[in-house]
């Protein structure tokens, strides 16, 4: 080992320098993974989104710079965009409303059951996404007890749940709920119970203590949870396909149909890019508004 003793001489590589280079080597697998599975498809997709139909062969596309693909994609599918936004937004709100009390309960009242309760939260994800959504087809079907009960109360405008927007939102809420609960739990669990005691010691009622102490301290979890729910829900197509009618299709369905059925690759790629851009803009403005500078 050259660097052990100072008397070792000039040829020794300083330990610090060698160590920092090791750090970069550790990045290599990750960079390679990203390069192969993210950067290359990303570029291919972008190139495809600008292609034009081949003048020679029907159904073939040639490299071009046809920006009008984007306008066409948007004009044809803007209702699906809006619907995705609304459905994903609603699902996120419902997941937050259901998930927050649940995460709060597990974090503060769970005691020794915490671990088990958390396993139960993620347990549904052990079954495949598709399978669970099929199960919801049965749960929400027209002669299921739930539908019949709600009909009995005259609460359903179409007298059914399956093949309506309600079913899609319900499915999205259910499927992404664990991604809401886990970050919420992580944030709530970190809160020192003594802070809540300090709140009540300083004349804050339980409700005020929640508003002024617990809620602000759990905000990083709320931001993370809503993002982890909203982003995949926005791009989802399984729920709309299995639980909704043709009138409830989301942007994910449009992309899927264009790729698989119509084989209109430029339009499908353009839709993907519009979706990506929309999500990015939404997420950034959301994070800025949430104002959690110590989120990352």
């Amino acid at each position, binding site marked *: 080992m050259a660097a052990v003793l100072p008397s070792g001489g000039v040829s020794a590589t300083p330990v610090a320098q060698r160590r920092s280079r090791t750090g970069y080597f550790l990045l290599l697998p990750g960079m390679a993974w990203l390069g192969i599975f993210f950067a290359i498809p990303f570029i291919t997709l972008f190139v495809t989104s600008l292609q034009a139909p081949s003048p020679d062969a029907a159904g073939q596309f040639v490299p071009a710079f046809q920006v009008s693909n984007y306008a066409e994609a948007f004009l044809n599918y803007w209702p699906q965009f809006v619907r995705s936004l609304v459905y994903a937004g609603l699902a996120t709100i419902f997941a937050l409303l259901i998930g927050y009390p649940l995460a709060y309960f597990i974090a503060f009242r769970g005691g020794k059951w915490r671990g088990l309760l958390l396993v139960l939260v993620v347990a549904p994800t052990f079954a495949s996404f598709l399978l669970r959504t099929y199960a919801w087809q049965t749960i929400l079907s027209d002669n299921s007890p739930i539908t019949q009960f709600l009909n009995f109360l005259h609460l359903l405008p179409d007298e059914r749940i399956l093949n309506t927007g309600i079913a899609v939102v319900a499915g999205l809420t259910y499927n992404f709920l664990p991604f809401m609960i886990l970050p919420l739990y992580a944030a709530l669990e970190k809160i020192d119970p003594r802070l809540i005691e*300090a*709140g009540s*010691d300083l004349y804050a009622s339980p409700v*005020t203590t929640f508003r002024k102490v617990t809620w602000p*301290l759990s905000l990083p979890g709320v931001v993370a949870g809503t993002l982890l729910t909203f982003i995949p829900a926005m791009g989802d197509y399984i729920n709309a396909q299995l639980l909704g009618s043709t009138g409830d299709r989301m942007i994910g369905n449009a992309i899927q149909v264009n790729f698989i059925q119509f084989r209109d690759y430029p339009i499908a790629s353009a839709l993907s890019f519009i979706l990506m851009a929309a999500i990015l803009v939404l997420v950034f403005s959301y994070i800025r508004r949430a104002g959690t500078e110590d989120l990352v």
Partner: protein
Amino acid sequence: MRQVDDLRLDHLTKSFGEMTAVDDLSLTIPAGSFFALVGASGCGKTTTLRMVAGLEDPTSGRILIGDRDITGMRAYQRPVNTVFQSYALFPHLDIYENVAFGLRRRGIKDVKGPVESMLDLVELGPMARRKPSQLSGGQQQRVAVARALINEPEVLLLDEPLGALDLKLRRQMQIELKRIQTEVGTTFVHVTHDQEEAMTMADTVAVMNAGRIEQMGYPAEVYELPRTLFVANFLGQSNIISGAVAGSDGSMVTVSAHGAAFRLPGDRNSASGAAILVGVRPEKVTLLDAVDSARVPAPHNRVDGTVTDVSYTGVSTQYLVRTPWGQELTVFEQNDIVGDRAAVGDPVVMHWAVEHTFGLEP
């Protein structure tokens, strides 16, 4: 000064399962007094404060301020504030908002004046807009004190509030706390591990052991006349010699121990039977060279011995002296003697006034 009432604990008990953390505690803390609670770690000090604050429900017993029974009141309804042992500052709020928290919750709109003067008081004015995580431990502690004090509660509970401060700042905060306490007339209940702090600041010191108060009173009173072995050893140091009561002539008790005889005033004896522990504080003992043993005043208690250790501590010198029966006693001498100090191996004689001797139940 405003009208405040005594804080009374009435047969207060708290058990955690099998463990009794606070055991049938009854005491009255006079309004506007500075009450110090000392005791070994885990003896129930924090639990007692938490019950007064309303953060822990007593298993049995009552808590009263004057004639108002506050036992059933929720924490946020009590006229009591706490400086927590772990600060518990709100990490998402800056120092200013931490200090303003209590005032805002009580609907006080104009918080600027009080908050700024409070921050000046704890010398954190320039830090007002920092977050707690950007402060040192001692600064955080001062924020915790300011956050509680600004509410001018009837009772302020301080759970080792000065533990993280350096000596200079600690003394400064002690003086400051004492001044504020006198000024606003709040009752302070102060838990500390620093006995000197307890004795210099408090009107009343209570020594707690295993969930009970062993002894309480004026600091000097408790120090000069400990009534239990725990108090004698916990509050300051004591030399304890075990013996048996040999006789009692009116106001004096005579004890024989290891072939030596000691006398102590009857009203300084807490032992009920014949077995007794004779005690004396190390600074009450005077050391003489064995050749000068004739100079020991006749009524004094005396023990011969050999010096086994000398440690010079600046203001005083601490000696360990081995008695003929092999016990080591501690002697503190002021460093005001001219000439040679006793050295290790020197034969000496220790003596002290009968009035400084106390007797304890073994």
